[in-house]
């Protein structure tokens, strides 16, 4: 192969690799579908919490248990929903930016390497509302059209 042909070949390979990388990134960062009048989920906490909003990063860190305390030092008690529920899927894609399957894999890593256990999984939106109402420091999410009861709805800042 001549020097010029080799250079052309090298450029083609680099271009192909670059295109593949961008495609992969695009596949991995497809934004969650959050369109529509009603949000697909709402984030709730115990009524005693002073916060009106939380950031995306804080929510993700709290549900992955990288961060375990609210400002002011109260323990965060995150509570999840069933793995096959639509609201879990929306929350996982939208906040954790990982599929439910990827999050399950994350918790398998944590459980069997001794780094922690996942938040409890409750059966329904209503069960999450009851849990959050009863537990100071609790943090959960429910379907957009479900009443939050005495729990406090938090805005989610990007």
């Amino acid at each position, binding site marked *: 192969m001549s020097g010029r042909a080799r250079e052309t070949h090298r450029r083609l390979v680099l271009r192909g690799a670059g295109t593949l990388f961008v495609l992969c990134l695009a596949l*991995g960062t497809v934004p969650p579908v959050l369109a529509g009048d009603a949000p697909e989920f709402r984030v709730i906490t115990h009524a005693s919490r002073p916060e009106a909003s939380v950031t995306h990063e804080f929510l993700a*860190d709290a549900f992955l248990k990288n*961060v375990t305390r609210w400002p002011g030092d109260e323990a965060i008690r995150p509570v999840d929903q069933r793995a096959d529920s639509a609201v879990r899927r929306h929350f996982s894609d939208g906040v954790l930016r990982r599929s439910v399957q*990827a999050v399950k894999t994350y918790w398998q890593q944590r459980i*069997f390497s001794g780094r922690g256990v996942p938040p409890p999984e409750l059966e329904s939106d209503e069960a999450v509302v009851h849990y959050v109402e009863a537990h100071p420091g609790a943090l959960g999410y429910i379907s957009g059209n479900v009443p939050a009861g005495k729990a406090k709805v938090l805005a989610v800042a990007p």
Partner: protein
Amino acid sequence: MGRPVLWGAMLAAALCLLPVRRAAAEDSPLTQPPDVHAFVSQGFMLSSKNNYLTHSRRGSFEFTEVGLNLTKSISDDLSVGMQLFMRDLGPIGNYKPQFDWFYLDYHFRDWLGLRAGRTKLPFGLYNDQSDIDSARVPVLLPQSVYPTTQRDFLLAQTGFELYGYEPLPLIGALDYRLYGGTIFIDQTSLAAPGETVSDLDVPYVVGGRLLWRAPAPIDGLTLGGSVQALRFDLDVSLSDELVSAFKQIGRLPPTASNTFKYSIPALLGVGSLEYSAHDLLLAAEYSRWHESYRTRPQIIPDGHLTSTRWYVMGSYHVAPWFSPGAYYSLFYSGVPGPKTRDKYQQDFAVTTRYDITSNWLLKLEGHYMRGTAGLSPGLNSNLPLAELTRDWTVFMAKTTAFF
């Protein structure tokens, strides 16, 4: 199993069995039952030419792992845990149970926690998860960086660990761990033909890992590095035949005894890159292991080796029940001289994971290998690695149930 390991486990067990105080608040972590998790894996391996990890040429089921763990929060800050593990992989393990890890964890703040006990070594992205079949797509992690045959040396240390996680405004978060202690190793696992290891000591293992987690919109990107320094001190006894042979060729003086001391200080480093978002996982790691060796009395000249190891890996959750993946992994032993087949191993793997239920999976995996540096002469009729077949393939199937 080392006695400290046993004592530590008994302490952890006693803590877990503390009676629940009725005065405790209803929602206190102490009143919650312990978390119990377990897994059972059975694999099969078949290779086209060389025996790999087990007697794989004829097809081998000597590929079993069992783990049972228990963790318990005593308060919001304090928790204990332990995992019992046993495995059989060819000549390794032989179903001998051992405590994989046990710890007492005081989580002072998110940016500072302290663990005492036997903790998994945070080396690279996946070393502390290398036993966990359910936590990844491939059957075998890339063996250049995570050699399963060296699990006893690289998996866990007994001592202390400081750890923390610190979100940084606008620039992501730092995830860090520092540790120091020792490693208890079953010295019988090191025996080789003609020699016996009568004592094995790891006077120290120290190291750390720093990971940077990127902020949105590139959250899911992780960059980091790990270093680890340790030293092995061995008392080795040679057979009379081997000593005679060494004396005849002048390697040993005529008055030399059968025993010698072997010291191996090692410095390991790895740089890591991972992108994990939604269903996609991409990872790449580059590692160099620098090992010195010294024998007294001198049987072989003092020296050192620096091996090079790297891989690139990707996987994708196509559906909740199906995840394919692939990786390319290279190990170069660093032994001086011409680049013969016994000094490197290239591994191109294609793998599929089927989640049959949420607690049961099956994996099928094929490897195309070039080079023999990752093979064991003991499994291959004690032939020199340079005489084994250069190009070979391995097929693996593995099923794991877990909860």
